[in-house]
């Protein structure tokens, strides 16, 4: 028995002392045989994205007739795990899809800076910031992702309010909510925070109404003061909104994707902080509550002197792997995937607000028109600037704040520490 314990112990000590070598090769071999590019994403198998991928393929084939393309659609919830394994192995796809923000910034070591290849697209496409680290762009944006506050005009009308003029101050907003809840029993917000995503949307949607423009820009630039009164106000408001019963019940056990959207779609809540692209966006909501009943607003003014704006960033984009044989060829595929033609198709079929600012969106209803109009004054979303580690912590703390097991101050202290490390 003694020996059985001693042996593994000896091995562990030996390994600890050695402590060398990693599973990562330093000179990753390329697996892109000449004339073939492999693309990983989680979109190309969606029915709504098929035509988009076909358009991009055709565009690329016209430029490089000899190259075959293979699109591998991975399940989204496994995507970064699989990609992590590929990065560890130093081989995998030539071109891969990324979410903007932390997910790509954590992995730029495995990517080729694209600036020299995609320079002609810089003006036409918006949303580069989310794919940029230290001044270099690592992916071309395909869609824009942001957090408009959608509201149900029908519920406003039922409560005798004017849906064309939603309140622009917090007091006015909560008063409207109270009136609507009294008349229709609909809660003010549909909240889904089971995945810890509710707080991300909340922070970004109301951030521009709480932080001063200076504080906002500092936050995005990485100078984040977690002790400032206005940052505290965001998290205090998160708690107060729940304590005052403005949220739909059971937020911590309700998924944002897609139970919370369901609550809004079935008119059980007046407002929801949604998305611009993918799902939980204007096109989904149009189907349930009708294009004429769907309104969009920016954050009400919560701190006097702020100018609320639409928070948005590059949503998803395509980057090029470091181990690809011919980065210029792979970058050309990225350019085809972000061509105006392809993106127009993506907008039409999937309802995504695409990165191409020249795509026409006038036929999609009032809500999308309002969103696109707000892009000009929009700013990067606050939560996208955070690392995935801090985002994950914020998700957990937000649940504990709602429960009352962690105070706002204690949460901010932890978040500040995580953000600095």
């Amino acid at each position, binding site marked *: 028995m003694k020996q059985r314990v001693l042996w593994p112990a000896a091995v562990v000590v030996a390994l600890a002392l050695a402590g*060398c070598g990693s599973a990562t090769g330093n000179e990753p071999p390329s697996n892109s045989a000449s004339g073939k590019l492999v693309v990983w994403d989680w979109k190309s198998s969606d029915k709504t994205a098929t035509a988009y991928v076909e358009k991009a393929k055709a565009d690329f084939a016209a430029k490089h007739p000899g190259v075959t393309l293979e699109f591998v659609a991975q399940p989204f919830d496994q995507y970064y795990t699989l990609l992590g394994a590929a990065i560890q192995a130093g081989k995998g796809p030539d071109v891969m899809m990324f979410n903007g923000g932390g997910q790509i910034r954590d992995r730029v070591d495995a990517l080729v800076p694209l600036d020299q290849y995609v320079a002609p697209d810089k003006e036409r496409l918006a949303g580069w910031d989310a794919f940029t680290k230290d001044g270099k762009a690592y992916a071309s944006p395909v869609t824009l992702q942001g957090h408009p506050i959608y509201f149900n005009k029908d519920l406003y009308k039922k409560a005798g309010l004017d849906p064309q003029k939603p309140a622009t101050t917090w007091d006015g907003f909560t008063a409207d909510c109270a009136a609507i809840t009294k008349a229709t029993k609909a809660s003010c917000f549909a909240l889904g925070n089971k995945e810890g995503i509710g707080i991300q949307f909340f922070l970004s949607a109301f951030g521009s109404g709480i932080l001063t423009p200076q504080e906002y820009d500092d936050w995005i630039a990485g100078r984040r003061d977690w002790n400032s009164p206005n940052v505290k106000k965001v998290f205090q408001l998160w708690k107060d909104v729940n304590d005052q019963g403005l949220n739909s019940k059971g937020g911590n056990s309700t998924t944002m994707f897609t139970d919370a959207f369901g609550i809004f779609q079935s008119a059980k809540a007046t407002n929801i902080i949604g998305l611009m692209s993918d799902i939980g966006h204007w096109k989904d909501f149009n189907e349930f509550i009708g294009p004429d009943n769907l309104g969009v607003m920016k954050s009400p003014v919560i701190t006097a002197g702020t100018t609320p704006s639409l928070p948005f960033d590059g949503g998803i984009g395509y980057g090029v792997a470091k181990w690809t044989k011919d980065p210029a060829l792979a970058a050309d595929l990225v350019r085809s995937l972000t061509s105006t033609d392809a993106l127009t198709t993506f907008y039409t079929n999937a309802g995504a607000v695409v990165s191409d600012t020249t795509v026409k969106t006038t036929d999609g209803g009032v809500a999308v028109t309002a969103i696109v109009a707000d892009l000009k004054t929009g700013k990067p979303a606050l939560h996208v600037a955070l690392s995935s580690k801090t985002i994950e912590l914020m998700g957990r703390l937000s649940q504990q704040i709602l429960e009352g097991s962690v105070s706002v101050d204690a949460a901010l202290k932890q978040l500040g520490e995580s953000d600095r490390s």
Partner: protein
Amino acid sequence: MSAERLAPFVLIAPAVLVIVLFRLWPLLLGVNFSFTGDGDRNGAAVGLDNYTELFADPLFLGALRNVGWLVLLLPVAVAIPGMLATFIYLRVPGHRLYRSVYFFPAVLSPVIVGSIFNLLLSFDGPLNSVLDVVGIEPVDWLGDSKVALFTVVGVHVWATFGMALVVFLSGFATLDPALLDAARSDGAALPQVIRHVIIPGLSRTIQFVFVTTMIGMLTSMFGLIYVMTSGGPGGSTYLPEYYIWIQQGQMNRPAFASAASTVLFLVMLVVGLAQVSFLRRTGKED
């Protein structure tokens, strides 16, 4: 060396090679990998840094504490199939039906079970509606950190007790009915029959169910956690496996995840050795 003496080694070689190549070697690589860094320090030796960080992370400590809860809840998870098997053995009305009904959940995958219970246990779901009718305040079964872990364990027990039930029933088959009849004619009540006849008669079976249920709880809760709570709320339902998955997949920290895996392996080793010695000791009694 003569061919005759060589033969046994040749014969066991495939099995040994498979174990060494596909079990031990990757295990050692993983342990070695856990002493290296992630991100900027990729591949560099960092000594025990990962382990220091791991044991300073309240989330990981919480996950280990939850393992402790699972061990404490083990008697309940064994008692439930034991009781139900006893009733079936004592031929309560409808026992034939119950025997097949109880086994049914065991054939469902954790993802399906989790999805079903997500619907049943949601805040505005059927269970809370029933509670409302009898005047009990709704409970946020999966959204309250004091309740969520027990909810998930409860669902796990529901989903897996069928297998233990079958083992118990086969144990009952070896029980001498004459003992029961003797106890009854001596005027023993049901609790006394269970206490003095059934439990001693089934001790081997009970031990076996303990061991298999423990292994099941420690190794196959991931699916339910993933589907039902995502580790939440506030990290209260994290288990080490889920923590490892998050660190590797979401945080892109494979070396750190290897350190957590190594700790989980050691925990399982201790539990496993304890169980082996436990079984060996009880085996000697016969």
